[in-house]
């Protein structure tokens, strides 16, 4: 039987292949279906940690400050993300409220905190307890964070509201745009292969 450590199966077509050494920043693709087998990230986990920390800061700002305000007859109506969820809930739309809450607040927060929990101890050569179970949760949660879609949604509603009243952009509007970029960068840099390798080294 071949040594399982040198072999890799494509997760899209199951073709068995031998792992190759990659140049820095290189991508290994499946010979049959072209699916990405693994990437080489120079200092990937260091970067992932930096991006994750920055994303956490922006996440907090994004959820505490108003995203947009509407000025009508001198009155200013502002909306935060949590306020929006609350408003939907109050209207009896608790399913929609839950969906928005989960995809824009809970899933991204769980994702950020989960990556931090793994990356921070690893940075100092420690193995975080229950890391295996947590990584499993992270791979599921990854699908449901939709910060980037939400940012586009904000832009579309701004255009729709522009006819109605004067629009006052809030702090969270800008921080959400930054969060979208940093969160994506952190997710890409959080390379599971490297995490498992590192976890194996410190065990």
């Amino acid at each position, binding site marked *: *039987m*071949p040594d*399982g450590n040198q*072999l*890799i*199966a494509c*997760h*899209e*077509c*199951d*073709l*068995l292949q031998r792992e190759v050494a990659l140049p820095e920043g290189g991508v290994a693709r499946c010979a*049959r*279906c*072209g*699916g990405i087998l693994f990437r080489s990230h120079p200092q990937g986990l260091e970067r992932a940690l930096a991006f994750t920390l920055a994303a956490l800061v922006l996440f907090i700002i994004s959820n505490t400050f108003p*995203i*947009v305000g*509407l000025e*009508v007859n001198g009155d200013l*109506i502002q*909306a935060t993300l949590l*306020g*929006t*969820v609350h*408003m*939907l809930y109050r*209207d009896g*739309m608790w*399913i*929609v409220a839950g*969906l*928005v809450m989960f*995809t*824009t607040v809970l899933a991204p927060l769980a994702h950020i905190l989960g990556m931090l929990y793994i990356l921070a101890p690893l940075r100092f050569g420690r193995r975080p307890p229950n890391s*295996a*179970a947590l*990584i*499993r949760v992270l*791979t599921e949660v990854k*699908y449901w964070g*939709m910060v980037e*879609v*939400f940012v*586009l*949604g*904000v*832009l*579309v*509603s701004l*255009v*729709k*509201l*522009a*006819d*109605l009243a004067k629009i006052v952009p809030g702090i969270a509007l800008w921080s959400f745009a930054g969060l979208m970029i940093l969160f994506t960068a952190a997710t890409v840099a959080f390379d*599971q*292969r490297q995490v*498992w390798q590192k976890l194996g080294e410190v065990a």
Partner: protein
Amino acid sequence: MSAVTAASRGLSACHGCGLLTQTGHHHATHCPRCGAGVHARKPDSIARTWAFLIAAMIMYIPANVLPIMITESLFGAQADTIMSGVAYLWHHGSWHLALIVFIASVAVPMLKIMALIVLVVSVQFRSAWDPLQRTKLYRVVELVGKWSMLDIYVVALMVALVQLKALATISAGPGAVAFGAVVVLTMFAAMSFDPRLIWDATENNDG
């Protein structure tokens, strides 16, 4: 030509961490590295994908027929469906935003359902038709799925902002619930489908 797959060598790649493990015939074991259940293929992939797809198709009707947003103003109440929202943007806002919303809310969910039907049916008939193209189709379906949530967020923000007591208030309509369900159900359908089944059909020698 017969390619060497992990399954043909009695190995299974863990869904969670990718580690190859030796697995018996149909016995599910657990990954020694991350503890996830290991299966050669996603369990009941075809049945589960169909179940989510059919549910999504049923919900697709109320999602498009029922109003997703209700505006009450001095001039009376106005109910907006997804399509009338697109039409509004087309006439009043900008045509490129109308196009974005149309693609995200109307075209993507429908094309996604159709693409998944093509994929599942082709696997069920063990079609050998261009597996590479079908794998690429699956990748696109996985990638674009979440963008359909766009309209839900737009409705949510409009509801939060337009509460102008005497002038106008906006509330979410029942169509929003159905529409959210379509997005979630099609995402589950895409996750349940196993693209490796596409390639299994090209190897007619396995038993």
